[in-house]
């Protein structure tokens, strides 16, 4: 059978975003993959020369609308470390709460999209229905659904009062019940297992060697979670990284599912331990120096490199997003798979193209 080159994307029904892959196919089996990017490239790292370092918080939130809180948090950590700002403890806990809410909504979104990628539309709708409850929490506590702009350099912008906290706790209970009710369908249904078990296997060695991060890495049995560094208030909370050992699409699904429940637990812990006090400090001076800041996004480790030389504009801002590190995994997983499995495997790394290209 001769070789055929099949373009996948940029406008493809299962992908909400434009990713383009050139697949070389030999009799329905993929032999070679070349990714092509650039459909979403905006060049926003360069905006740091026009906007000052306070305004950049809003820009970096728009690197990716799904995990905006965590982007802003990473950026703020970097600037705060550079300027020697000590964030008040209450602000640290609030950051944890909002970032875990965002992790939840991102994982729920992915679980839904993933179910859709193999045609399980009912499950898609269910997960997105639950997700709307999480969105309600963000909307009522911050005023916006997706891009919430709570982080500022030096702390957070909004506070939670005790009424809101108890309301969130009751809502979380409902969410937890609803998610647990879907566990059986997601993890044991014939449709799901048939399409995911043994597909796109990445061994522990491979996953580590090509530098994958997040659920892809943890799904292959490597214990690595940047949250264990203890940034924000994570050092005061109790948790273990979620790890599965099989390294296939099913294992990644399980990791994300368990992490969603873990986030609920973390929010509860944070709410029970949250201290009283200020939520931000006044920022004086200009940043100067060079710093690398890392946090854990829903998709994996996020790295910011910030260089400043005492001006109000930063010298260089570099963002390495998790999907950027996970794209080489597609190149390793796809060869040898059937063409019809390509959408499922591509989606299993949770690609976020606007993150990747910025």
């Amino acid at each position: 059978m001769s070789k055929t080159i099949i373009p996948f994307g940029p406008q493809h029904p299962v992908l909400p975003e434009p990713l383009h892959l050139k697949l070389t196919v030999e009799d329905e089996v993929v032999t070679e993959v070349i990714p092509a990017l650039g459909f979403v490239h905006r060049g926003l790292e360069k905006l740091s020369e026009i906007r000052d370092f306070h305004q950049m918080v809003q820009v970096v939130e728009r690197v990716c609308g799904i995990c905006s809180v965590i982007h802003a948090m990473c950026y703020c950590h970097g600037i705060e470390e550079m300027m020697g700002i000590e964030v008040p403890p209450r602000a640290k806990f609030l950051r944890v709460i909002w970032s875990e809410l965002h992790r939840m909504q991102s994982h729920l979104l992915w679980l839904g999209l993933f179910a859709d990628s193999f045609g399980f539309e009912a499950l898609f709708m269910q997960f997105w229905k639950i997700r709307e409850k999480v969105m309600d929490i963000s909307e009522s506590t911050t005023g916006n659904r997706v891009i919430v702009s709570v982080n500022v350099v030096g702390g957070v912008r909004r506070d939670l009062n005790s009424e809101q906290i108890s309301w969130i706790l009751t809502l979380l209970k409902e969410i937890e019940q609803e998610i647990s009710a879907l566990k059986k369908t997601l993890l044991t249904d014939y449709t799901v297992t048939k399409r995911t078990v043994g597909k796109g296997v990445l061994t522990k060695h491979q996953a580590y060697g090509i530098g994958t991060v997040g659920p892809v890495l943890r799904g292959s049995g490597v214990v690595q979670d940047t949250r264990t560094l203890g940034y924000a208030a994570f050092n005061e909370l109790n948790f273990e990284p979620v790890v599965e050992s099989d390294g296939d699409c099913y294992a990644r699904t399980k990791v994300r599912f368990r992490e969603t429940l873990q986030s609920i637990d973390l929010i509860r812990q944070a709410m029970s331990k949250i201290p009283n006090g200020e939520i931000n400090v006044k920022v004086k001076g200009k940043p100067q120096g060079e710093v690398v800041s890392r946090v854990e996004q829903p998709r994996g480790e996020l790295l910011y490199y910030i260089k400043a030389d005492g001006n109000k504009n930063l010298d260089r801002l570099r963002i390495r997003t998790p999907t950027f590190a996970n794209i080489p995994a597609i190149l390793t997983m796809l060869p040898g798979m059937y063409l019809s499995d390509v959408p499922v495997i591509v989606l299993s790394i949770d690609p976020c193209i606007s993150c990747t290209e910025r």
Partner: protein
Amino acid sequence: MFKKLIRNSRMKSPWLLHFDCGSCNGCDIEVLACLTPVYDVERFGIINVGNPMHADLFLVTGTVNSRNSMVLRNLYEQMPNPKIVVAIGSCGLSGGIFREAYNVVGGVDKIIPVDVYVPGCPAKPEAIIDGVVTGLQKYDRIVN
């Protein structure tokens, strides 16, 4: 009578195509959220299709850059007449927060004609549904 049938079915069940051209995902996800149970645009007979040749409504989110402007025009030209374009989010309107970035051309209307503008960063699902319904009214006028 046949004409009336076509007109009715067009109005009662417009199919939409969604294209993300350089959005930050915020607007993108809100468009998808419109299709899910809480907002559920399917009650207006709206179905999301992947094929531009089936679509009546074109929802565009995000800024245009030099590479995806070709794709955008391409998709627009493939859609059959009459068609309605809805630009969503500050980015789709003018380039939004990324206006000054070097690889950004600007709003969607620099490339294709836009009928309805939905502001917001990100635009809320309610606003998007409103935009779609406004687009449908305009569509009605065009069809007749």
